[in-house]
């Protein structure tokens, strides 16, 4: 069996890579994305006080510390059996909405969007935000930086620090919101709603308005019929912060729903001998190998999955766009490139929810914390991270010192689904007797980039870049050819 390896050459060298396995005939048999895994975090935490976890876990990685902060705070609430007061819950959700807004903006404009705004076959040196600026105008770059700034400033006001918040604690928040701060957050929220509308207009104009890209998004080339997973509120509307996890099948029918504490009844993890990564799958469906369909337990947990499992969006503008989305794609939608569109609908929802919460009568209440009274034991915290459902599960002794920590991180949910997408992209490009083309890199990047996988990039040593390397290996494992990006 020949093997093609796409290997990032960084601190995580040898750990994060794409491997493409060819069969004897030279056809693609399977492909896998191996996301770098930083080990030992659970062990690092054991013995520490559980209330340190909201601050400690946001050091796992520099990409989504806010998501770890929230999941950890909710897990610590559960460990102590406390319910934060309404204002604390709303402050957390407000912080979280601003975080989602900045994160989704970054993904669409800096990373995912350029493939569409400039075209998937544009030279790699142009397929970036600078290329977008040259094509659409410098104004867009300034707006993106402003969007990030407003998101981060709102996180800083509520969370005490930019990006690495520290105010969510077991039982609530350490500080209330002052009226002057609320006014500032409201002003930024209004701007955020307009920005999200602008982003969707741009998507309709430049992407869906281009027949070639529209066909790519609506077509079958990047499509897999898997299960979808995501958090919904009590009316089955998308919620990032709280609710129940709902799972729907490839046909859209509900497979099941669970509260955070029951995640182990629904998700099992597959271990493959060739990978240090685990592949979560739906326990009640079972593992049937790397394939899609109703009898395969592979699922996705992405913006598209969240829209698929929901009956509606909780805010009006996002709801209108949600209706347009499914009227175009059918429901549930399976095209992985549609994740980009779904992400922008979530961007609009995050902005609307940000503004809604900034105007909420409870939001400046000084009542932001309930002090834990009971003996700590065990708890699970669950939120939607931008990249998928995030679960923190802790157990402590009677003093609140951790004895067990288990994390299921967003990207991991999608390991198997990303493998399907990479294999499909590779199959279209690698044919027996045909030289492996440079275009392989573009199409494979597009396949996994839609999922927005977190590779923990921001914590790496300089030069801070993760270049791709493709190594083609023969049946004996010897390299035949190396492609570098």
């Amino acid at each position, binding site marked *: 069996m020949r093997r093609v390896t*796409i290997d*990032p050459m960084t*601190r*995580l*060298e040898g750990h*994060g*890579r794409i491997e493409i396995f060819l069969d004897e005939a030279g056809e693609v048999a399977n492909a896998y994305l191996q996301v*770098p*895994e*930083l*080990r*030992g*975090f659970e*062990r*690092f935490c054991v013995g520490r006080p559980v209330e340190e976890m909201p601050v*400690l876990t946001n*050091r796992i*990685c*520099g*990409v989504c510390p806010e998501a770890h902060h929230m999941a950890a705070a909710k897990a610590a609430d559960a460990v102590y059996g406390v319910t934060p007061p309404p204002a604390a819950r709303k402050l957390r959700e407000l912080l979280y909405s601003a975080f989602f807004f900045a994160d989704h903006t*970054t*993904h669409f404009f*800096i*990373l995912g969007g350029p493939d569409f705004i400039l075209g998937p076959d544009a030279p*790699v*040196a142009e397929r*970036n*935000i*600078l290329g977008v*600026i040259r094509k659409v105008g*410098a104004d867009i*770059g*300034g707006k993106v*930086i402003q969007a*990030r*700034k407003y998101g981060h400033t709102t996180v800083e006001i509520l969370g005490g620090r930019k*990006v*690495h918040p520290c105010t969510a604690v077991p039982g609530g928040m350490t500080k209330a919101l002052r009226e002057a701060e609320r006014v500032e957050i409201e002003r930024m929220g209004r701007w955020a709603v307009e920005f999200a509308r602008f982003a969707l207009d741009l998507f309709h104009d430049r992407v869906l308005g281009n027949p070639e890209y529209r066909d790519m998004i609506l077509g079958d080339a990047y499509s897999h019929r898997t299960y979808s997973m995501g958090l919904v509120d009590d009316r089955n509307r998308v919620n990032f912060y709280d609710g129940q996890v709902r799972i729907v099948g490839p046909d859209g029918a509900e497979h099941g729903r669970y509260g955070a504490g029951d995640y182990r009844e629904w998700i099992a993890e597959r271990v493959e001998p060739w990978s240090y990564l685990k592949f979560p799958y739906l326990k009640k469906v079972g593992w049937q190998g790397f394939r899609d369909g109703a009898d395969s337990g592979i699922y996705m947990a992405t913006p598209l999955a969240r829209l698929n499992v929901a009956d509606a969006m909780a805010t009006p503008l996002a709801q209108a766009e949600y209706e347009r989305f499914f009227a175009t794609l059918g429901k549930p939608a399976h095209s992985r490139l549609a994740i980009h569109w779904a992400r922008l609908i979530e961007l609009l929802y995050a902005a609307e929810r940000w503004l809604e919460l900034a105007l909420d009568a409870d939001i400046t209440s000084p009542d932001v914390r309930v002090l834990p009274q009971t003996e700590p034991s065990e708890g699970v915290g669950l939120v939607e991270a931008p990249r998928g459902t995030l679960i923190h599960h802790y157990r402590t002794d009677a003093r609140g010192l951790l004895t067990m920590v288990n994390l299921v991180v967003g990207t991991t949910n999608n390991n198997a689904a990303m493998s399907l997408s990479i294999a499909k992209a590779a199959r279209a490009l690698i044919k027996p007797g045909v030289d492996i083309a440079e275009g392989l*890199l573009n199409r494979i*990047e597009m396949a996994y*980039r839609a*999922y*927005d*996988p*977190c*590779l923990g*990039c*921001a*914590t*790496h*040593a*300089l*030069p*801070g*870049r*993760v*270049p*791709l390397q493709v190594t083609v290996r023969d049946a004996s494992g010897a390299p035949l050819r190396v492609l*570098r*990006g």
Partner: protein
Amino acid sequence: MAGAPRPLVLGLGNPILGDDAIGWHIARALAAEVDPDAVEVDCLALGGLALMERLSGYRHALLLDAVVSGAPPGTVFSLPAANLGARLSGHTACAHDLGLTAALDLGRTLGLALPQRLWLVGVEARPQFEFGERLSDEVAHALPRALDAARAWLRG
């Protein structure tokens, strides 16, 4: 330099990921000995775009970080950050951020006030994937030399 903004010294990396924390160690040691009115010292667990945004508004900035270049662990580098640029374009496996050079290009294109003098003092790290607060011996021993290099930059 009367009226000029203070230079910024930034320790980079993840403070709980072994040698990746070396930038924070150098920054903390430096913060203990410099006049805070003359030099701003801070730490940041972010790279790329967020790092570029943090640098905005400074004329002089020094980055302290772990480096993985293939040199023996503990090797100290002191060089203009621009020298890292060659590797920072092209395909990327990182789906969620830009490299620093691309981020700086973006910032300059948008007219942000970015440092005219951007320098790196780096220490070659032992690649590591285990969380922990300990530096490897080689990197811990390099701390005084890295600190000297940072002081020399501040004097220059």
